[in-house]
């Protein structure tokens, strides 16, 4: 760990030296007029051309006039919301349509205040911020994956249709789903959150002292401990809760798809189903 950290620091210093503190007369600068203007104008022109050609060759869709009495099957949301619509298979609307979007926006807004790592400003730096890059990339890929599934692979009654399958052939879901009991569901949710929050903190204390100093397990323990200590209790908790929510989505998807679980927690009296 120590050696890699040192070489990482040297590399970082080298990178920094390559772009040392800019001064007004520095050769690292160029005038906005005309050089940056070229960039802006070229972006504008190319966008215009692409949009113009696109509009010329592909007419925008206009379906028959709106008819409240004729519901198309399937009715799909605009593409950027289809990912959320796809989540309706696995969650109630208050989660898929309200809670998760709210948490996504809130979580995105929270990123700068959660991520205390000061490395990499103004550069593509994976080395010094692997965790942040992985989490963000996974979230982005997952978001677009849901959109692609919802947009291209869902047919009538929101059943799975491959692009070459005929939508005229009606598919039905014969899956019998069930919900867990109140006790089981509560225990699962509390357990999931508690395990996710506490285990990464406990591992370094329980396993760390018992393994050889040079082993990869020890390195892993050190990394976990550093992860927690860098953040402190509050930020660690917020960050892990957001992360656990994000990871909870595929967990529920797996439970639904492979274990036919409808709701983990079901409280019909107040419409609270998870």
């Amino acid at each position, binding site marked *: 760990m120590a050696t890699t950290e040192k070489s990482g620091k040297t590399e970082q210093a080298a990178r920094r030296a390559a772009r040392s503190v800019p001064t007004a007369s520095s050769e690292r600068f160029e005038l906005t007029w005309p050089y940056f203007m070229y960039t802006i104008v070229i972006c504008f022109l190319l966008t215009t051309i692409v949009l113009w050609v696109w509009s010329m060759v592909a*007419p925008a869709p206009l379906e028959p006039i709106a008819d409240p009495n004729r519901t198309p099957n399937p*009715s799909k949301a605009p593409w950027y919301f289809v990912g959320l619509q796809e989540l309706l298979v696995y969650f109630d609307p208050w989660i898929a349509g309200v809670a998760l979007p709210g948490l996504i926006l809130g979580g995105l807004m929270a990123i700068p205040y959660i991520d205390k790592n*000061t490395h990499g400003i103004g550069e593509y730096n994976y080395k010094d911020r692997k965790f942040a890059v992985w989490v963000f990339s996974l979230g982005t890929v997952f978001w677009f994956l849901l959109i692609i599934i919802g947009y291209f692979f869902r047919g009538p009654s929101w059943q799975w249709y491959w692009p070459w399958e005929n939508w005229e052939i009606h598919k039905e879901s014969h899956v019998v789903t069930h919900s867990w009991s109140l006790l089981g569901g509560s225990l699962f949710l509390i357990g999931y959150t508690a395990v996710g929050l506490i285990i990464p903190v406990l591992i370094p204390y329980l396993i760390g002292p018992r393994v050889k100093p040079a082993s990869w397990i020890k390195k892993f323990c050190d990394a976990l401990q550093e992860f927690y200590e860098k953040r402190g209790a509050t930020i660690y908790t917020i960050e892990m809760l957001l992360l656990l929510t994000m990871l909870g989505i595929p967990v529920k998807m797996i439970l639904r798809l492979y274990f036919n679980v409808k709701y983990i927690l079901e409280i019909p009296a107040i*419409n609270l189903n998870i």
Partner: protein
Amino acid sequence: MANLSLKNVPQAIVESQIWKSIFRHGYTMNRRNRLLAITNNVFYHILPTKISKYGVRMRFHWGAGIITFYLFLILTFTGVLLMFYYVPTVPRAYYDMKDLQHVVPFGNILRNMHRYGAHAMVFMVMVHMARTFYTSSYKPPREFNWVVGVILLNFTFLLSFSGYLLPWDQLAIWAVTVGTNMARATPLIGHEGPFANLIGMKVNNDIRFALLGGTTVGSATLLRFYVLHCIGFPIILTIFIVVHFWRVRRDGFSGDVPVRE
């Protein structure tokens, strides 16, 4: 009278009082004029006079923010033109779309550019966000500008979504029905949401009812979405764009600044 030849005309124009009252500096390519071109222009002076060669490369910034903003300009322009031909009432909306397709000169391309531009803008906002993340541009001192950016993302969604209803075809009302049905499940303030029954939410007094102006997507919804789409959301978006650009200018481009310790 001796110098009254065609050759002297350009110079005479450039030195005239009228010209000088409009353009305060020459166009000769010297450093002074190039700086003045930025600082003396109300539209350009939001830009710095010089910019780091490192940060200005396309492969650093992908032009994502520039393109997003330009798409917003295109959408404003084509949107205003579309407003000349479109009336947001149930009997007329759809047939105005047909007129745009078949009767209005260049109406089809106008509409296509507006629609595709909107899709492209939603996509480019996401691309811009990803770029900003991967270059750590949200880190201090730019935290708040990232938050403003997320707000802009949100309002881009809202603008695009409210515009989706306006053609008043099957695609429009059912997509908006699907989208707004989610609102009835909002905790507390949607009548099917958790805890809503505790405070007496019904189908005709919850958040979705306020959004649609009724219990189903209808003429009130069309008017609401039209007003929000053409006036409400663009004004809010513009305000946040101003803040966004201002903060970029104040805090500098992340590509300008060396990595902080």
